């Protein structure tokens, strides 16, 4: 795509200090084309290292998915597929706007370039906001890593007093729920006969019986009593993968912000658009990694 646009290194003569070359040509390059090719090769190599870095995580993922399929099957239900899907769309659209921005730079369309970079930056922000909500929801119900994970704590009541308390309250809540469930069934029979007034009554009794902070009906830790062992590892992998990816998004936002600043300043044109192209490639890679992360983490079938 970008190779189609010829860079004309002799075109710029207004700044005479660099042997009559473009002001953006570094002194050690012979031509703008050489500089562009070097940058392009450089960014591709860098992307290669990024892929290898993530491949370590994918490897860890594969090994644990293979060794503990039940963990992945159980734990992925805690991830919000809708939010993940929205984020996937957000990133794909941002990839499009980034590609458009590269095109705009190649055609010296400054306004369009600025606009497209802004759109990309905004979409990246949207992605992070959604991610933030996903993370905080998990933190709220205790899905941390390792020993802080509520599932691990429920499975190891002997490890600390806190774990014991949590376990006891979860068991109590579960018994209550079972009782309620039976009650509910009984009510359901009754409901068939007298439909009104009953639902309100039920929800009242429900709320009053779960006054403490641990039990919120089906949202409390008791829902995790049936978790398979070592489920916390899934969350370790989840946070490492999405966390590292999130860090790459942040880094990409910094880079796009820098491009935005330079494009407003008017640095880019059909003779010199390398940085836009390089950041674009990086951004596509970050999107691509998410496109793998999403099904691997959110959409697991047995």
């Amino acid at each position, binding site marked *: 795509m970008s190779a189609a646009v010829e860079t004309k290194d002799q075109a710029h003569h207004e700044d005479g*200090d*660099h042997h009559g070359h473009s*002001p*953006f*040509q*570094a*002194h*050690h*390059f*012979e031509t703008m084309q*050489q500089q562009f*090719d*070097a940058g392009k*090769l*450089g960014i591709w*190599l*860098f992307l*290669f*290292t*990024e892929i*290898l*870095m*993530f*491949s*370590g*995580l994918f*490897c*860890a993922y594969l*090994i*644990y998915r293979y*060794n*503990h399929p039940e963990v992945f099957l159980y734990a992925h239900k805690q991830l919000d597929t809708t939010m993940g899907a929205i984020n996937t769309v957000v990133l794909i659209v941002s990839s499009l706007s980034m590609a458009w921005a590269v095109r705009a730079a190649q055609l010296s369309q400054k306004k369009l370039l600025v606009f497209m970079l802004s759109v990309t930056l905004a979409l990246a922000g949207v992605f992070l906001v959604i991610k933030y909500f996903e993370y905080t929801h998990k933190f709220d119900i205790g899905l*941390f*890593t*390792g*020993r*802080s994970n509520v599932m*691990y704590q429920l499975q190891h009541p002997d490890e600390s007093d806190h774990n014991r308390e949590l376990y006891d309250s979860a068991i109590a809540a579960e018994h209550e729920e079972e009782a309620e469930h039976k009650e509910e069934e009984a009510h359901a029979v009754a409901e068939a006969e007298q439909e009104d007034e009953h639902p309100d009554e039920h929800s009242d009794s429900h709320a009053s019986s779960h006054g403490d902070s641990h039990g919120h009906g089906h949202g409390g830790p008791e829902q995790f009593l049936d978790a398979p*062992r*070592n489920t*916390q*590892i899934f*969350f*370790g*992998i989840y*946070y*490492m993968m999405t966390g*590292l990816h999130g860090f790459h998004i942040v880094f990409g936002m910094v880079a796009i912000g820098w491009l935005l600043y*330079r494009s407003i300043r008017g*640095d880019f044109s059909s003779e010199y658009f390398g*940085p836009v192209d390089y950041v674009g490639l990086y951004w596509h890679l970050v999107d691509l990694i998410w496109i793998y992360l999403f099904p691997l983490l959110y959409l697991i079938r047995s």
Partner: protein
Amino acid sequence: MSTITPETQTATGHNDDPSSNYLTCTSGFMSWAFTLDHKRIGVMYLVGIFAAFFLGGVLALMLRMHLLVPGGLFPDWMVSLDGYNQLFTLHGAVMTFLFIIPSIPGSLGNFVLPLMVGAKDVAFPRMNLASFHLWVFGAIFFLIALVTTGLDTGWTFYTPYSIETQTNVIAATIGAFILGFSSIFTGLNFIVTVNTMRPPGMTWFKMPLFMWAIYATAIIQILATPVLGITLLLLMGERLLGIGIFDPSMGGDPVLFQHFFWFYSHPAVYIMILPAMGIMSELMSVYSRKPIFGYTFIAYSSIAIALLGFLVWGHHMFVSGQSPMAAVIFSGLTFSVSIPSAIKVFNWTATMYKGSINLATPMCYALSFIFLFSIGGLTGLFLGALATDIHLHDTYFVVAHFHYVMMGGTVIAFVGGLYHWWPKMFGVMYNEFFGRLFCAVVFFGFNLTFLPQFVMGSRGMPRRYATYVEEYQIFHVLSTIGALTLGIGMVGAMAVLVVSLFKGRKAPANPWGAATLEWTCTSPPPYYNFEHAPHVDSPYDYSDLKYDAQIGGYVKDPNAPKKSGSDHH
């Protein structure tokens, strides 16, 4: 991101003065610390890594002194059991991450490679500077680990011990992580430089073999280092968040860490040795005044080593409980990687045939290299063979083996290369007599240190022991005496170079009669290296170089019959 910096402008201003060179064109701390000049970055790397080498060396001497008697020489308050564990860990970590991995690419590679391609700089000078700055940050993190609670995991950070130890694993892993990026930046720069900045006429097979070696090294740096990065990140996650991937008490697998770690760290030993092999190819040819024998085989063998090196990591884990099938496959692949190294040794030796061998100091180091690297390589056969490795694994035999390859190989070639390019780097000649003398001391001390370790290793002495049973004492005593000799030799070898800075006579442009491009510019080179892109000759054709006694160096002989083309294809 304007590329016009104060230095380049100043340098441009000074460039017309013929006596000006890259060392004198500007001065002041900032002109060095933030320079974009590959030569200055190379020199700063040189200073940095020798500081690390000195630190690692002092730690090594303390280790060896402590092992002089079975119960440990130093009293408990000086070197306790924990203290000893910290000493060997820091010795290994400092030597590996701070010294030997960046050594040749960072210093000689940075200095020489752009000159060899006749370029003004590497492709990305800023990234090159960032690489050095990252090295400094990495070193700072290692120093933080050193002065806080230390590090006692062994340089390999094996889990689960590295998860539960109280020492400062976090600082050390952050340091190693940062150094990984430093290494990636260097490698990336070299690949792009070699690919895009070669002068017209320098085809792939007219490149000096040092460039081939650095290129092969850079491939490994790019492919392997990211995996180390993620491994260290996971280890940090393990300690800070308890993610559990490597922690058996959380359902994780500690052996998986070893796979991840060695997937990087085995190729990393080729990051260490390949550049040394590149130096050897230059030295053997220049000082024999013969074109290198079998250029094509040597060039391809570098690439073969780089690629095969990725397939053999499992040979570090023959007794880790991996399946016998995996062990057999890894053993077979390990032997396959020994062949390209053997080819190189044969070719270097054959290069001397019918030559005119100049026994200058760099050649003395090169000859030492062949002796020591042959021992290092051949003892690798004992470790690659499964049945013998079971017995020798994790004993002093392994310690001796990798010191013969890493120190007897890489460090000796590095010092040889340093003596070779020293006149070019600083424009001075050193004292040949003392240069050779300390080379001999190093050679003797090295063998005395590590030959006894082969014997005690095969007799069953495990590594990383602070105290040992009495029957091994004689070998430890010999080894310690050798280590002290080696230490004296190394300090002496460095002193010869440092003294030359003040007392050495001025170096001619080409003191050794080498035919690669860096010798066509003045010593030391001007800021811009070459005013015009130089003419590319065959890198190993010495027929038109003639010794001129008046200037003490070689000059082009205008009368020499110029061979057309090259001796090789």
